């Protein structure tokens, strides 16, 4: 404003600004404070949980925990070797089912997004995502356990895998949509077939994001308990066979925590700590994967 004189309306505006300036500054600092507190409170639960888990569980956490089998009541020591192995097997089975189906469905949704079938699939996938895990457990029991006549790790892995599908589908679709359409055009113009464009250009470009999404989904289902209660059921013994009941960390934690024995409570805390550490490690790997942008040549 380099006019030599301010007009009447300009002067009025300046006075108004002066009057309200103090109030606006005050509002600003109050709101800023509220947001700081909210941000702090949001991270507080994780801090509490971590501190509590370490305090309760660390004492039971030694080499035996990872290598020894559960002991009968009254005997000291023992570990959760079978539950840790079981969780890895169950999560692996789930990933073997959930990742290909989820990534395939996500690719379809992103590439055929406007069709009616695609929007139906997207809608159903969102519902599946919101499905309570206990419902998934009962359903898996009805379909996979009852006809066979006994609990099995396979049933548990399938239940977890089905839970993974919508998670992976959604992130895959979103990541593929982030790939610029110009890249697809460039590949087509080079004489790439549509499928080859999708797989070797679009999917590969979106891969770091998809891997992150997949790892987050794995971390999510690694802690699921409800679908396993009716399917993998739990097992006090060492078993890696898919058609037998299998132990898993969440199941073992549940069983030990609800028992009346002090020693088992400590083991349950330790199991919870291990489970949380597992999820944290997966999340860290996910972050690392997203950071490295360039995968290098493919030969």
């Amino acid at each position: 404003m380099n006019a030599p004189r301010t007009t009447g309306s300009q002067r009025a505006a300046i006075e108004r600004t002066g009057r309200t300036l103090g109030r606006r500054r005050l509002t600003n600092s109050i709101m800023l404070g509220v947001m700081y507190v909210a941000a702090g409170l949001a991270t507080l639960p994780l801090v509490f949980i971590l501190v509590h888990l370490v305090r309760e569980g660390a004492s039971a956490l030694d080499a035996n925990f990872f290598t020894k089998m559960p002991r009968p009541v009254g005997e000291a020591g023992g570990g959760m070797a079978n539950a840790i192995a079981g969780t890895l097997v169950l999560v692996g089975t789930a990933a073997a089912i959930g990742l290909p189906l989820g990534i395939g469905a996500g690719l379809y949704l992103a590439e055929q997004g406007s069709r009616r079938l695609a929007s139906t699939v997207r809608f159903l996938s969102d519902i599946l995502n919101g499905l309570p895990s206990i419902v998934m457990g009962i359903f898996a029991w009805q379909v996979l356990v009852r006809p066979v006549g006994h609990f099995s790790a396979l049933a548990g892995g399938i239940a977890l895998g089905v839970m993974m599908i919508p998670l992976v589908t959604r992130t895959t679709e979103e990541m593929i949509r982030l790939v610029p359409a110009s890249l697809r055009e460039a590949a087509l113009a080079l004489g790439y077939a549509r499928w080859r464009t999708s797989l070797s250009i679009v999917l590969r470009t979106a891969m770091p994001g998809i891997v992150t999404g997949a790892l987050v989904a794995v971390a999510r289902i690694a802690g699921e308990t409800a679908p396993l209660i009716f399917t993998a059921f739990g097992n006090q013994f060492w078993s890696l066979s898919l058609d037998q009941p299998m132990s898993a960390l969440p199941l073992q934690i549940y069983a030990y925590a609800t028992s009346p024995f002090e020693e088992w409570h400590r083991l349950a805390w330790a199991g919870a700590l291990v489970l949380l550490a597992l999820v944290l490690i997966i999340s860290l790997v996910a972050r690392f994967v997203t950071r490295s942008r360039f995968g290098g040549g493919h030969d």
Partner: protein
Amino acid sequence: MTTTVMPPALPSTSTTPDASPRVRVAVRALDAYYGATRSVRDVTLDFMDGQVTAIIGPSGCGKSTLLRCLNRMHETVPGARAEGEVELDGTDIYGRGVNPIEVRRRIGMVFQRPTPFPTMSIRDNVAAGFRGMPDAPSRREVDVRVESSLRRAGLWDEVKDRLRDAATGLSGGQQQRLCIARALATNPRVLLLDEPTASLDPLSTQKVEELVYELRGTVTVIIVTHNMQQAARVSDRTAFMLMGDLVEVSPTSQLFTAPRDERTEAYITGRFG
């Protein structure tokens, strides 16, 4: 590559272009639609072998659409279709039984914005068009073709020591020349350039223009541009389009000095556009 771009010195001042060049791409009564909208109307036009032809016109005149009809990229847009004939060396690329993928492999295309594949190294980007095809070449052959393509695109000296690096690490102008190298690597007979310098700085633009100028004779270049000076600098012939119609196609020097159509004259003198 220190020569500056000279205005094309066409030898003849007669209205007919040089008699000898043969027709590489012949467009016959071509209509292109987006849904019900007709964006290219009844265009008939010849592109001469080894020449650079520029297509100019105001935004939305259908010049990019026409270009995209020449390698059947137009139909990849949902709802888009083309009617008419486009002959490449006498064969109608819209004919029955013609595979659009084969067509696109023989006709290179470069877009407005550089489109290096971000997951690939510089070398793999150049090789992307001819590798993994049915007649996959050997590793050594790949290296040879990558080098010759990069040399043709005038990029070899700048990237020869970092062929394994990410292509996205190059500057915008280098990325665009990489895309030209990638298009040349399949040995196309025709190179389509869709406003290839629209997103580049003046220096990079000049390099791309020099490259286009040098490519004449070895490949038939068709370049869409909204920049009339660019058309004047790089092309042998210029086609002027307006509202989907082909208004005029003449030797470049003639179109800019003595246009036959008054609409062309109005456009090149800046009365609209």
